[in-house]
């Protein structure tokens, strides 16, 4: 520590050097901590926070596949015209089958994500939250819409706009579930990372 010629600067440096490392709180803080230790641990929510990313990855993958599928057929009309009617019919049946499989896989993954989100401890508290009613209503409507779009897609799996709408509805459902979980967390300590 270099001492300055200014006596006030010197005094300040001495005060900094002698500042105690520890200060005692006026009251016992342990009891308050111990009570709150019984609440569900934050780290149990961490995987849930990662789930929307997985959902987004699925949505991106599905969008890319759909774009490739529709783009291929759109950009190669000559190929379709040059092929025989049987080949076209056979090709279309194969494509539709692949899309049906993709549809089922995405629906299954989405159901798993929803199940995982609704099984977290936070949702137990969420049920009692007075802020949750609009979210619950929104979830019900989104699920109904998602089911109708899913049925329409099963009948017509090559409808690009229906696909986009279905993926959007699924993502919104996951977003709403995430928001509903945030409602339940008291004294949130998120946002801190080491």
């Amino acid at each position, binding site marked *: 520590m270099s001492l300055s010629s*200014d006596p*006030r*600067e010197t*005094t*300040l440096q001495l*005060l*900094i050097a*002698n*500042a*105690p*490392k*520890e*200060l*005692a*709180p*006026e*009251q016992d*803080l*342990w009891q*308050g*901590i*111990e009570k*709150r*230790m019984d609440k569900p*641990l*934050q*780290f149990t929510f961490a995987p849930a926070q990662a789930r929307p990313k997985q959902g987004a990855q699925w949505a991106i993958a599905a969008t890319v596949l759909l774009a490739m599928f529709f783009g291929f057929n759109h950009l190669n009309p000559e190929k379709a015209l040059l092929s025989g009617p049987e080949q076209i019919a056979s090709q279309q049946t194969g494509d539709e089958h692949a899309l049906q499989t993709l549809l089922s896989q995405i629906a299954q993954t989405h159901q798993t994500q929803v199940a995982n989100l609704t099984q977290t401890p936070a949702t137990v508290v969420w049920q009692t939250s007075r802020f949750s009613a609009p979210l619950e209503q929104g979830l019900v409507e989104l699920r109904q819409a998602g089911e109708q779009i899913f049925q329409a897609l099963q009948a017509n799996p090559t409808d690009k706009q229906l696909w986009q709408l279905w993926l959007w509805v699924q993502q919104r459902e996951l977003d709403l579930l995430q928001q509903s979980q945030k409602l339940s967390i008291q*004294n949130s*300590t998120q*946002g*801190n*990372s*080491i």
Partner: protein
Amino acid sequence: MTAGRLPLDDAMSEFDLVTLASQGNRAAFKQLYLTHHKKVYALSLRLCGQASQAEEITQECFILVWQKLPQFKGESQFSTWLHTLCVNQALSFMRKQKSFWARFIPMESDAEHPSSDENYQGLDKLILKLPERARIVFVLCAIEGYQHEEIAQLLGIAVGTSKTQYHRAKQLLQEML
């Protein structure tokens, strides 16, 4: 949880206590709390400037430690990890407080209401009288040894602003002496 009730050996190292606490042993965690809570409180008080808030930050900090302990892999010392966590927690707490009060007081003012507790002595008595931003920068730089680049990153301000606030704090403190 039976692991939470196991008695502790007096000769246990901090590493052992951290390991036990991360497995849910409350006695080990309490021991860690008793060892470190005064340091956490001192840092919290100096950063936020109010005893009641510092107590709240200290509690939040240890609850967060309890929750995050399973993620602590021992790559740094526990005290270093705790210190970083405490700084983040204190700054986060203060941001939340500020954003809440900002709804009612649109004009941001530097004239905060520091703790009027006369129990503190020496530097702490003076620090509590500093404006908030100057106090935070001064505490992190002069007492905790952070570089201005680190402070700027933590607070989301320019390095130059950090230096300005530091010199402002020093000037104010010297005037108080």
